[in-house]
């Protein structure tokens, strides 16, 4: 297996560009690639006009909020932004475009992108404003919404353990959107809290296989924990 370990500087410089669509893992703080996001925020001039696909908007001062408040993001596609009142203000003031999608359908649209499924049909959101303006299809007498897949240029996720080849494993509730995002982008950067020799993870227990991964980078200390 290839050794995909590199520095976060190399990985970001190699794959991330202004104008791209980035998928960012995490739900709450678990799975959020804080180290990679911090680097991108530290080069606010270099990485702009980004479209972010992320479950939530993080809390003020951490994670993607660093990019949001510096104006690096033109659009956020998310499911819930309730923990970031500052971003809600940005959204309501029209500073940043925000598209909200029901959480499971958000995950399914990403999965479809990763699995080569151009679109799925769903009844989720029928009879609500989520359905407005969406194409529909009649299947067996039932109206369904057509939800096209989502793909990204680069996925940024944080795993608990990765091997050098890029196989990754998540602890507890940290997995959330990370695995599916790792399947749906041209490039995948796995930030790992622990990096082990290839072959150390049990092959049956790997959550994201290395064939999806382009770079493994060590996670640094959590900036918001002051350590």
């Amino acid at each position, binding site marked *: 297996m290839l050794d995909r370990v590199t520095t976060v500087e190399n990985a970001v410089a190699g794959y991330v560009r202004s104008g791209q669509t980035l998928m960012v893992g995490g739900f709450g703080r678990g799975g959020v690639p804080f180290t990679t996001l911090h680097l991108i925020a530290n080069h606010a001039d270099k990485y702009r006009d980004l479209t972010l696909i992320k*479950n939530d908007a993080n809390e003020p001062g951490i994670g993607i909020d660093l990019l949001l408040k510096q104006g690096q993001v033109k659009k956020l596609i998310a499911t819930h932004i309730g923990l970031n009142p500052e971003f809600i203000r940005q959204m309501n003031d029209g500073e940043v475009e925000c598209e*909200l999608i*029901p959480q*499971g359908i958000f995950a399914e649209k990403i999965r479809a992108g990763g699995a080569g499924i151009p679109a799925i049909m769903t009844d989720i959101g029928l009879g609500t*404003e989520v359905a407005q303006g969406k194409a529909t299809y009649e299947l067996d007498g039932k109206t369904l919404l057509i939800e096209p897949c989502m793909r990204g240029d680069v996925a940024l996720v944080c795993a608990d353990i990765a091997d050098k080849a890029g196989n990754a494993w998540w602890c507890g509730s940290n*997995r959330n959107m990370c695995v599916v995002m790792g399947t749906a982008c041209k490039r995948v950067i796995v930030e790992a809290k622990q990096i082990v020799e290839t072959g150390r993870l049990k092959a049956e227990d790997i*959550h994201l296989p290395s064939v999806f991964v382009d770079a493994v980078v060590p996670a640094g200390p959590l900036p918001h924990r002051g350590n």
Partner: protein
Amino acid sequence: MAKRELTSAELTLLKRAAREVRHGMVVNLGIGLPQFLPEHLPADTDVTFHSENGFVGMGEGNPEGTPDSDVIDAGGRACRVVPGAAFFDSLTSFAIVRGGNLDLAVLGAFEVSVSGDLANWKIPGKLTPGMGGGMELAQKANHVLVISHHLDKRGRGKLVPQCSLPLTAPACVGTLITERAVFRRVDGRMQLASVHPDFDRESALEGIDADVPSAENLEPWEDKS
């Protein structure tokens, strides 16, 4: 599970809501009042709690945890898991919900209409946090139980002729429990199913500006035992 002092009205409605939870159920608890439900369940009721951020078998809150802990609930609070818990990703989490394996969702509400429509995710211009997993929980849980104070701060009942706020899902609420009454959707219409012993039918319908029929036989509020 959650930390704050409950009012006596809240305790009353939580105790009544706990009676809706059956042995063996898979249950999702919305953020807020529903998170206090577990402590009111009889000790011998084996319930599996689903947390939509990626696991089943959610246990108690973890007082030693932080928001950076490896196990948090969908509201971001550190928690524990019980033996037999399983972690998975967001795909499996919502496959459980949409596939029909979630027996009960216990949710809060801004409004419930007499036809069972639920509005609990957005107050345009005021509260716009996003729907999260709420639409799927409301639309796809095998049963949706809404628990809520009977009256809002302006003295209006939760049960309304028609929701004025954006819907979470139409015709989804199976049961609404307040500290005064239980309402159940029967043939597409919410009806009064039980009244707390401290209230009469009239006060059980106080603040509700809609025609709400009563069930032929009201259920007792308390267990017979």
